[in-house]
C-alpha cells in the first residue's frame, strides 16, 4: 500500500514551504523524511493529515487519490503529531478509548486493541495514570499506541522524539523499527536528527521545501554524510 505524493506545493502567504514535492513511500518499511528546521516536513505532514488545506498536488494511497479529508483513507493512517496532542485532563487509558471510539471500534475490540498496542509500545504499566503525571517519553509512547489503535497501514510520525532524552529516543527508535519489520507497517518518520534512524531506512531529504534526495544509505555514516552534503549544497 504505497503512499504517493506528486507535485505538492504549499505557501504560507509569500513564504514557500513546499515546492513541487514528489515522492513515493513504500509500505512495510521506515522512510525517514529528513530535513533541517523549516525544511517543510511538518507542512507535508499537515497536508497528508488534512490539518491544512491543500493548494496543489496529488496524494494517493495504493493508487487511490484522496482529497484533504477522506474518512475512508484516514482509517488507514495513524498520526503522531510533533506537539503533544493528548487530553491532559484524562488518563492514558481514556485517551486510548476515545481514539478507538472515534475509529468505530466497539468495546470488546477496544479493550483488546488497548492491550495489544500498550504492550507493543511498552506502556501498559502507566496507561491508567493521568497524562499530567507522565513524563515526555511516556506520553509519546501513549500517543503512538493511540495512533496504532485501529491497526493502520501507515504510521506517520512528526518528530516523535522531540524533547526526549537519548535513552528514550534510542528505545523508541528500536520499538518503531521492530513495528515496521514485524507488523508490516509503513512508517513515515519526519525528523531532523539521523541518530534515531537505521542504515536500512529509506531516506528522503527535504531542504527548503524541495525533495533533494531519495534513496537509501548503507550505513549510518553514509546517511550523515549524504545529509550534510545536501544541506551544504542546497541549504
Amino acid at each position, binding site marked *: 500500500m504505497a503512499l504517493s505524493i506528486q507535485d505538492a506545493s504549499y505557501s504560507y502567504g509569500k513564504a514557500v514551504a513546499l515546492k513541487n514535492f514528489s515522492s513515493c513511500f513504500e509500505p512495510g518499511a521506515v522512510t525517514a523524511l529528513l530535513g533541517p528546521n523549516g525544511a517543510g516536513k511538518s507542512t507535508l505532514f499537515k497536508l497528508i*493529515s*488534512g*490539518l*491544512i*488545506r491543500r493548494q496543489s498536488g496529488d496524494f494517493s494511497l495504493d493508487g487511490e487519490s484522496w482529497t*484533504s*479529508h477522506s*474518512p*475512508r483513507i*484516514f*482509517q488507514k*493512517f495513524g*498520526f503522531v*503529531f510533533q*506537539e*503533544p*496532542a*493528548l*487530553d*491532559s*485532563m*484524562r488518563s492514558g487509558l*481514556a485517551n486510548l*478509548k*476515545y*481514539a*478507538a*471510539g*472515534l*475509529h*468505530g*471500534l*466497539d468495546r470488546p475490540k477496544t479493550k483488546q486493541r488497548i492491550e495489544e498496542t500498550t504492550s507493543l509500545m511498552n506502556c501498559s504499566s502507566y496507561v491508567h495514570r493521568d497524562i499530567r503525571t507522565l513524563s515526555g517519553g511516556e506520553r509519546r509512547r501513549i500517543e503512538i499506541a*493511540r495512533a496504532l489503535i*485501529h491497526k493502520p497501514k501507515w504510521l506517520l510520525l512528526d518528530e516523535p522524539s522531540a524533547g526526549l532524552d537519548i535513552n528514550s529516543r534510542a528505545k523508541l527508535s528500536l520499538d518503531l523499527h521492530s513495528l515496521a519489520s514485524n507488523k508490516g507497517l509503513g512508517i513515515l518518520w519526519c525528523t531532523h536528527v539521523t541518530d534515531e534512524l537505521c542504515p536500512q531506512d529509506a531516506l528522503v531529504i527535504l531542504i527548503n521545501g524541495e525533495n533533494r534526495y531519495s534513496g537509501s544509505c548503507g550505513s549510518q555514516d553514509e546517511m550523515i554524510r549524504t545529509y550534510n552534503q545536501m544541506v551544504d549544497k542546497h541549504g
Partner: protein
Amino acid sequence: MDKLIRPLVVIIEREFARFISQRTRLISAMVRPLFWLIVFAAGFKSTLGIAIQPPYATYVTYDLYVIPGLVGMVCLFNGMQSSLAMVYDREAGAMKVLMTAPLSRRLVLAYKLIGSTLVSVIQSYLFLLIAIGFGVDLPVLGLIQALPAIIISAYVLSLIGLILASHVHGLENFAGVMNFVIFPSFFLSSALYPLWQLRESSESIYWISEMNPFTHLIELIRFGLHGEPFSTNTLIIVAIALFTTSFIHLLFKPDS
C-alpha cells in the same frame, strides 16, 4: 453502524467527563442562575409581579417569570464553555485527534453539538429541580412539555458557541468574546423583564431585544414550561439550526 455510533458515544462521554471533572464549572453552572433566583428574584418577588401576558393565565410572581431566562442562562453559559473547551483543545493539540479521525468534519461537529446540548439539558433540569426545591411554583407537566424547547435552545446556543469558536484564536480572545456575547444576549432579552416593559423605556432597546435570538429561545422555554411546547417559532428556529448545522463545517477551517 458502529462506525457512526461509537464516535458519537465517545464524544458525548468526553463532554460529560470534562463537565464532571471540572468541579468549579459544575458548581458555577448551578450557582450562577441560583444566585439570580435566590438573591435577585427574591428581592423583587414582593415588589414585582408580572402582568397577565401569554403564556401566563394570571399574574405571576417574579421568580416564576425569571425561570425560563435562567434556564436560557444555563444553556448560554454551557454553550460558550463547550466552545471554550474547543478553543482549548485546539491550543492544546487534542483537536488534531478529532480532525484526523475517519469521520467527516460535518459529522464531528454535529456530534460535538449533540454532546454539548445533552450537558446543557441535564444542567437545565438540575437547575429546575433545585428551583422547585426553593419554592418556585413550576407546573410539573410543564417540566416535561418544556423538554423540546430546552433541547432546541441548548442546541442553538451550542451552535452559536461553535461558530464563535471557529473564528476565535486563543483562549484570551475567547474570554473577550464571552463578555461581548453572553452579557448583551442575556440583558437585551426577555430573560429578566417582559419586552413591553422595555419598550416603555426605550424603543430602540426594545427592537434590539426583539431581534435577539436569545429572546426567542427564552420565550420557547417559557411557553414550553406553561403548556405550549410547539409553535411556529419552534419550527423556524429548528429549521435555521439544522440549516446552519449543515454548513458549520465550512466555517471550521482545518487550517485554523
